[in-house]
């Protein structure tokens, strides 16, 4: 028993590096292609898929109900009030956008750094980005109060002759998030075009042949096309990298440009970006672990991926920890009465519990245990950690927004914040919408980029001919 376990472990390790293999041995171009296309091209939908989709869909209907009521009555049904005028909506906005960032990091930054292991997970990480941005983008829109006038945010020549105010970070957000959504969708789609060609060629039903045929744009794999395609992919990656860093930076400006203690700090941009990537990798793990089990993809999304993602989380987690430490330090070092009070109140005030939840979830549990390779490759533990970090990062945004706002300068202006059932319904509803969209993606689109996996197989090596004929 023990010896077979050891052998199994040895197969998973690459003898050249001692690391876990990126792709399990024994895969060929055809086996990879068939494994990935079969998930989509089968006419039978697994029962487990239907069950989870049912739950996600039901929660999405909760979202629809709550948003309908919100449009009928107004944002008064939420817990927001003075002085806490930014509540769940902005917390959820920042949280969702942050989750999206890991997808771009995996697809763009790791591509530029030639991290081949990213290939198996980049497609669904990008899908995660897009669906997270869908959920995130909804919040500012429904938060504006009169969402039917949301187009006023864009510089459009209207009969009112009113134009947006370009010095406001809130307007920068409009451009940052809309650009981010557009580029993410384009990058994702372009990445799928060759795979759509494969799907078209392997589809049995007429409907699948036509839809993948159209989606593939007639891709035929010409090496001239591939050369331009590779250039475009690299350029898109090179553009998405500064973009993703700028998006959370701009979001952090929403806070940092204000004069409120707890918001008005220069560390916000890097600290927000690191936190975004931290929570995003947690979400990738939350999705990847059940997915690879359910669809038996352990040969393509291997322990190496789980291990590496654990390492990225460890690194970004420490940047986040540095951010927390620096906030406390500056509260003392600035010698500002307001800053010191803000920090004390954050830790020990009426909502101090939230601060300790975030410290426990973001620092105490993950940063002490992710050092261990044994734990990093323990799938159950990594799933647990991913949930813990997701919760912790949500609380980070809660703490930043609520505990800064409810105790501002004048005690006469102090208040409190209690989320209402509508706040919870909308938040849980976006989780359902995200789940439902993600499951649709898994069912109808190739979730692992086949062309990129093929490049990593041993058969892709160009070997000199054994007996030269010339």
């Amino acid at each position: 028993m023990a010896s077979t376990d050891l052998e199994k472990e040895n197969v998973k390790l690459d003898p050249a590096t001692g690391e876990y293999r990126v792709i399990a041995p024994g895969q060929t171009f055809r086996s990879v292609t068939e494994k990935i296309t079969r998930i989509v091209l089968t006419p039978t939908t697994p029962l487990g898929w239907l069950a989870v989709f049912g739950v996600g869909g039901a929660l999405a209907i909760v979202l629809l109900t709550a948003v309908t009521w919100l449009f009928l009555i107004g944002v008064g049904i939420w817990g927001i009030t003075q002085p806490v005028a930014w509540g769940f909506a902005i917390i959820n906005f920042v949280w969702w956008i942050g989750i999206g960032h890991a997808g771009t990091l995996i697809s763009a930054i790791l591509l530029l750094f030639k991290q081949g292991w990213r290939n198996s997970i980049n497609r669904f990480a990008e899908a995660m980005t897009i669906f997270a941005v869908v959920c995130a983008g909804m919040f500012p829109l429904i938060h504006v109060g009169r969402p039917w006038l949301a187009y006023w945010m864009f510089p459009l020549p209207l009969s009112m002759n009113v134009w947006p105010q370009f010095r406001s970070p809130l307007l920068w957000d409009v451009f940052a998030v809309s650009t981010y959504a557009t580029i993410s969708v384009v990058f994702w789609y372009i990445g799928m075009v060759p795979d759509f060609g494969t799907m078209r060629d392997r589809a049995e039903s007429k409907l699948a042949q036509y839809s993948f045929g159209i989606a593939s744009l007639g891709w035929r794999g010409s090496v001239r096309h591939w050369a331009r395609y590779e250039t475009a992919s690299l350029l898109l990656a090179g553009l998405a990298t500064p973009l993703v860093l700028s998006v959370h930076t701009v979001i952090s400006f929403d806070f940092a440009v204000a004069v409120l203690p707890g918001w008005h700090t220069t560390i916000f941009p890097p600290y927000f970006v690191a936190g975004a990537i931290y929570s995003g990798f947690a979400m990738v793990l939350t999705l990847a672990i059940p997915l690879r089990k359910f669809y038996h993809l352990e040969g393509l999304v291997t322990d190496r991926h789980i291990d590496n993602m654990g390492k990225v989380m460890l690194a970004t987690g420490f940047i986040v920890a540095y951010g927390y430490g620096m906030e406390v330090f500056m509260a003392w070092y600035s010698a500002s009465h307001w800053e010191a009070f803000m920090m004390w109140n954050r830790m020990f005030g009426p909502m101090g519990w939230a601060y300790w939840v975030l410290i426990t979830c973001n620092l105490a549990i993950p940063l002490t245990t992710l050092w261990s390779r044994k734990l990093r490759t323990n799938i159950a533990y990594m799933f647990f950690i991913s949930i813990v970090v997701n919760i912790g990062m949500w609380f980070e945004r809660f703490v930043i927004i609520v505990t800064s706002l409810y105790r501002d300068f004048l005690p006469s202006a102090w208040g409190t914040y209690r989320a209402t059932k509508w706040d919870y319904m909308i938040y849980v509803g976006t989780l359902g919408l995200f789940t439902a969209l993600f499951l649709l993606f898994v069912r109808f689109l190739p979730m692992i980029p086949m062309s990129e996996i093929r490049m990593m197989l041993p058969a892709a090596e160009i070997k000199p001919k054994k007996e030269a004929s010339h």
Partner: protein
Amino acid sequence: MPPREGTYGMLAEFDTPGDLIRAAQQARKDGWRRMDCYTPYPVEEAAEAIGFHRNKVPLLTLIGGLMGLAAMFSLETWVSVLAYPLNIGGRPLYSWPAFIVPAYEWTILFAGLSAAFGMLALNGLPQLYHPLFNAPNFKDGATTDKFFLCLEALDPKFDLKEARAYLEKFQPVSVVEVGY
């Protein structure tokens, strides 16, 4: 386009990328120009072998990015200085540092869209029909695990018999004639 008849080209199928590259290099050396390789994943060496070294995608991306930058920065300036001047905390109307952020985002937006759509346009996509899809072995191979070299009939050297004999020399899995 008028309907065309006759032969599009001669298509040889290989099992490995190495065989394809050697065949393509030799064909190029022997004076073939109108030819193309088809692979299930990017094989840079094959593009090099048929003499395709540079492409215009980076140039289009640069032009797109500069256009986005110029468009947004001038829009911001025009709105803030001329169309709708607002006094925001006494800041100058032309507060260019604040204009950088949206201009930066639009640089990326336009550059990214130019890279993606420019690539598709240069590739002549979408093009849902192509004669190669008529080849019986293309469908199950070119997007899965086979490597193809196509000598096109438009090449002045092209002759049905000779092209087939020429390709047979590389010991491919098969050589088929592809019609329009």
